[in-house]
């Protein structure tokens, strides 16, 4: 299950939805808003998603993970809206009988999610600047346009 939500993520509740008696291992990734990016002090992040395609593509990634790795279940949730430093932006969780598959599948899901799911983030800087992050160094400064 892949979901986009404006509500705060609760990793304990999300983990509880995945676990069952067969799961010998559980691996999760929690992506949080950090206070610096490329040398600039960040105050907050604003996330925006193209829901229709994001949820379809996210579900495809989870289905691929279940095919590629010997896992029992997988889920990923991404938050949208304005987030403060330290808040959880994305959570991915995987259960498996054994740890190797759980680690590999969790890594696969978060990497593919970043590359393929249409979600944008805008950084709000301590100095008042704003920028849409466009992957790698391809930053597009909104402030330059204004």
């Amino acid at each position: 299950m892949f979901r986009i939500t404006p509500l705060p993520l609760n990793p304990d509740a999300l983990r509880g939805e995945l676990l069952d008696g067969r799961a010998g291992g559980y691996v999760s990734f929690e992506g949080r808003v950090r206070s610096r990016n490329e040398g600039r002090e960040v105050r907050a992040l604003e996330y925006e998603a193209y829901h229709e395609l994001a949820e379809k593509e996210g579900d495809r990634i989870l289905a691929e993970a279940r095919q590629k790795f010997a896992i029992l279940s997988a889920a990923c949730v991404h938050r949208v809206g304005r987030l403060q430093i330290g808040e959880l932006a994305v959570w991915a969780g995987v259960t498996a009988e054994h740890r190797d598959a759980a680690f590999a599948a969790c890594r696969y899901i978060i990497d593919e999610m970043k590359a393929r799911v249409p979600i944008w983030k805008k950084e709000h800087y301590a100095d008042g600047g704003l920028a849409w992050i466009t992957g790698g160094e391809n930053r597009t400064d909104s402030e330059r346009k204004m």
Partner: protein
Amino acid sequence: MKRVQVQYFALLREQAGCSEELVETAAPTPGRLYQELGARHGFSLPVDRVKVALNGEIAPWDAPLEDGARLVFIPPFAGG
């Protein structure tokens, strides 16, 4: 002329000044429509940095543009 529904996100939404619009166009493909709308709205992203979704799925820029199509121009993204 055909009428198509265009939706924008992130940087393109800000540059277009709206999140969606109904557009009348003679453009035969999404690529030509992006150029047309880019000239109108002043998009800073060249077409090779943007993707297009046609009726909910990523499509090639030279796909045929039909009357009633739903398009989303997708600027480079960075979730997580």
